[in-house]
């Protein structure tokens, strides 16, 4: 029995191999030189890299930072209250002193004075509405950190009800809390009761607010969130006639949405602050704060028929694009239809995506056959080939949003094909080792980061005409169920990551600073047991200008998604070309050659080429 030491192993590793000549064959150098291509694409280190734009959207401020910012605002407001209170107290003391000095016959006069002082306790009248200019409106969504419409913390009214139809975290302009908050609890809050949390976004109920906001504007205008005001503004640019018809609703949206966004968010939230919240708040702000579902007047003409709409109908004739049955049409291999953003700007996708489907597809391809369409799940293939997003520097999740022109827009896209973009949304939970913790045990390796986690993507109707989610057929949540807490809530383990791909069609002439989409994640933190909401806004200018400039992770996901859609027989990939996919996969294998994902990308290139060959040999085109 012998024992080998580490030193001995190191010595053996370092010594030249026995029986092997390390000198290369004589002709190897000539072969290598002959392989040098005529043109070599290269970007020198240190130079600007057009293919690697730093388009990572910064992570939202850390919870501690948010808490401090909100605490600071609260302290400022409290200081104002104290100053006002001290002033009023001084006035009353002085009046009492005067009363003592006055003759009893003047007692009634002093009562009048006291009444006057009571009136002085009432909040100052709300400032006149501030009309935001178009430029301001366009800038506002681009600045994620501006507390324009971010609600104040719930220092005054910890729990306020929200309208049942309010989508997750819809950033309606809001003022400081008011007495309205006492009118009800969060029973109707779409995602369940909100714990007081630094990222909780209270929604105010317009009906309860009306009881404390004299005078209620008759009739109650349909309040519009900030996005709706923006969408109205963008539509004005596109279609004058449509704008005329919607003028009433748009005006109300601008008045109640944008103006109160300024008034409620800034004036009410900071300067008015607690006084507004305690003593009645701002009528204009309160009335406009309740976000309502987008209501499209019947008078709005249907979108002009185009090739895409026809294609949509062909893809799923029974599907209106919005009210699809999660158990029905979307299970079909054809893929999700495009959804009109005006009809339903909010989309969801599952946080769990296995990779078993790809293993199955690979087995078929290895055996020289194309996999059966129903065996291919697009989201699983996309996630198998997802290039790992980095874990968050702080917080529980890193959110990533990337986009670029899609090279796979089919012929059905028609002349508007250049307005199609492929978007990648990535979520990555922090790993166990990302924080200083106790030594990980085997049980601790799969620590649960979040419970009741759910994710939403909200597209801006002023920028995105329509969108579709790649894959996730049969797993999407019916619109009515999205806000229920017991539907599709999942646990997220440490280190877990998920990628979702969307194909979107942009409206013409969108401005770079407009918000394209907002990715939202809401979960209950395993550490604090509080509900936390994080979001990430993606601007138009965050889109890569062309495919070559797109982040490699996006290109990889898009190529994998296209391959899966072709294999699945998706309607949207009926014109897909496996040779083209194989060519782009081969390109990517070079890009990823030195990265940990390199092996998988090489696998993708290999199998895409194999699928193309099988298809070619079969002589069939388009469908497996």
């Amino acid at each position, binding site marked *: 029995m012998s024992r080998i030491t580490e030193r001995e192993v190191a010595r053996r590793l370092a010594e030249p191999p026995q029986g092997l000549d390390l000198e290369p064959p004589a002709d190897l150098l000539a072969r*290598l030189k002959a392989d040098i291509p005529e043109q070599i694409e290269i970007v020198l280190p240190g130079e600007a890299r057009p293919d690697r734009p730093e388009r990572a959207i910064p992570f939202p401020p850390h919870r501690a930072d948010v808490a401090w910012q909100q605490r600071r605002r609260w302290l400022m407001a409290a200081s104002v209250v104290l100053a006002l209170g001290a002033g009023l107290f001084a006035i009353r003391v002085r009046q009492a002193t005067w009363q003592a000095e006055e003759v009893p016959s003047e007692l009634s006069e002093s009562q009048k004075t006291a009444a006057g002082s009571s009136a002085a306790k009432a909040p100052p009248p709300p400032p006149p509405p501030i009309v935001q200019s178009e430029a301001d409106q366009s800038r506002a969504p681009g600045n994620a950190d501006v507390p324009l419409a971010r609600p104040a913390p719930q220092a005054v009214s910890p729990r306020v009800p929200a309208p049942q139809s309010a989508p997750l975290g819809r950033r309606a302009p809001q003022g400081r809390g008011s007495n309205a908050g006492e009118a009800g609890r969060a029973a109707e809050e779409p995602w369940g009761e909100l714990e007081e949390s630094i990222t909780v976004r209270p929604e105010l109920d317009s009906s309860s607010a009306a009881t404390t906001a004299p005078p209620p504007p008759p009739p109650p205008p349909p309040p519009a969130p900030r996005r709706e005001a923006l969408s109205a503004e963008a539509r004005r640019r596109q279609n004058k006639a449509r704008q005329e018809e919607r003028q009433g609703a748009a005006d109300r949206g601008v008045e109640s949405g944008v103006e109160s966004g300024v008034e409620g968010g800034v004036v009410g939230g900071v300067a008015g602050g607690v006084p507004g919240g305690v003593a009645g708040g701002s009528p204009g702000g309160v009335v406009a704060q309740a976000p309502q579902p987008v209501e499209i007047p019947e008078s709005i003409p249907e979108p002009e028929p185009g090739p895409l709409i026809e294609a949509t109908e062909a893809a799923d004739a029974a599907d209106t694009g919005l009210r699809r049955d999660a158990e029905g049409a979307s299970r079909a291999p054809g893929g999700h239809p495009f959804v009109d953003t005006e009809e339903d700007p909010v989309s969801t996708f599952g946080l769990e995506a296995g990779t078993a489907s790809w293993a199955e597809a690979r087995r078929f391809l290895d055996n020289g056959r194309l996999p059966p369409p129903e065996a291919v799940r697009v989201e699983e293939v996309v996630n198998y080939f997802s290039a790992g997003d980095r874990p968050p520097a702080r917080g529980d999740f890193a959110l990533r949003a990337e986009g670029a022109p899609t090279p796979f827009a089919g012929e059905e896209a028609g002349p508007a094909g250049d307005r199609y973009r492929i978007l990648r949304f990535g979520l990555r939970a922090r790993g166990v080792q990302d924080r200083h913790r106790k030594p990980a045990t085997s049980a601790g390796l799969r620590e649960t980061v979040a419970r009741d986690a759910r994710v939403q993507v909200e597209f801006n109707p002023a920028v995105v005409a329509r969108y579709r989610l790649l894959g996730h057929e049969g797993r999407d949540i019916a619109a009515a169920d999205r806000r229920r807490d017991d539907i599709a809530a999942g646990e997220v383990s440490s280190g877990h990551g998920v990628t979702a791909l969307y194909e979107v069609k942009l409206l013409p002439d969108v401005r770079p600073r407009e918000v394209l989409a907002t990715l939202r994640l809401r979960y209950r933190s395993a550490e604090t047991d509080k509900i936390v909401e994080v979001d990430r806004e993606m601007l138009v200018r965050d889109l890569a200008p062309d495919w070559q400039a797109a982040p490699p992770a996006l290109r990889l996901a898009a190529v994998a998604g296209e391959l899966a859609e072709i294999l699945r027989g998706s309607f949207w990939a009926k014109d897909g070309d496996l040779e083209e996919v194989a060519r782009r996969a081969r390109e990517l294998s070079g890009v990823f050659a030195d990265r940990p994902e390199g092996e998988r990308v090489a696998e993708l290139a290999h199998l895409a080429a194999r699928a193309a060959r099988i298809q070619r040999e079969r002589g069939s085109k388009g469908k497996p």
Partner: protein
Amino acid sequence: MIAMTQMAAHVNPSSLPPDPGQADERALLAAVAAGDRQAAERLVGQTYRAVYALLLRLSGDADTAADLTQESYRRAWAGLSGFDGRARFSTWLYRIAYTTFLNHLRRPRLFQSLDERQEETVPDPTPSAEESVGSAAAGDRLRRAVLALPDDLRFTVTALYWGDLPVREVARHEGVTTVAIRKRLRRALQMLALTLGEEAR
């Protein structure tokens, strides 16, 4: 090369003198970018011996190593636009050669899932009866034992000992500290000692 490798594995990288080869690499890359084919040939001439030696040690077969060297350079030329200069060109090239070899290993069965690859595609380190004598067989056992290591340890060992890369370069490429690389190396040596010791019983 052996002496350099041993030094590289045990010398504090921060005390290493500036690498004159890196400036030379950059100059050659600049020339390649300008379309100078001779510069590309010089780049190949400077690096191909190390690439071949690595692949020979990994594969244990001269013909295979030559073919894989060719394939590695083809992939390198195709992927040069993805070279970000984070590590040296030779380090980047090493990683490509290493990945090319791993892909070669998996080729006979084509592609299994990563989970099942480890045990199914890496050769069994246990020697056969014919291999139990001779130094060549010992070298082959060592190679198989290295290939049976977990991926991060395998990469570290081969990069430091067979790829002739300094600790600092490996750390930079892997995005970890040099201390982490040394810890990996130590774990790898421990595992190799255990495996080879059990074989020798």
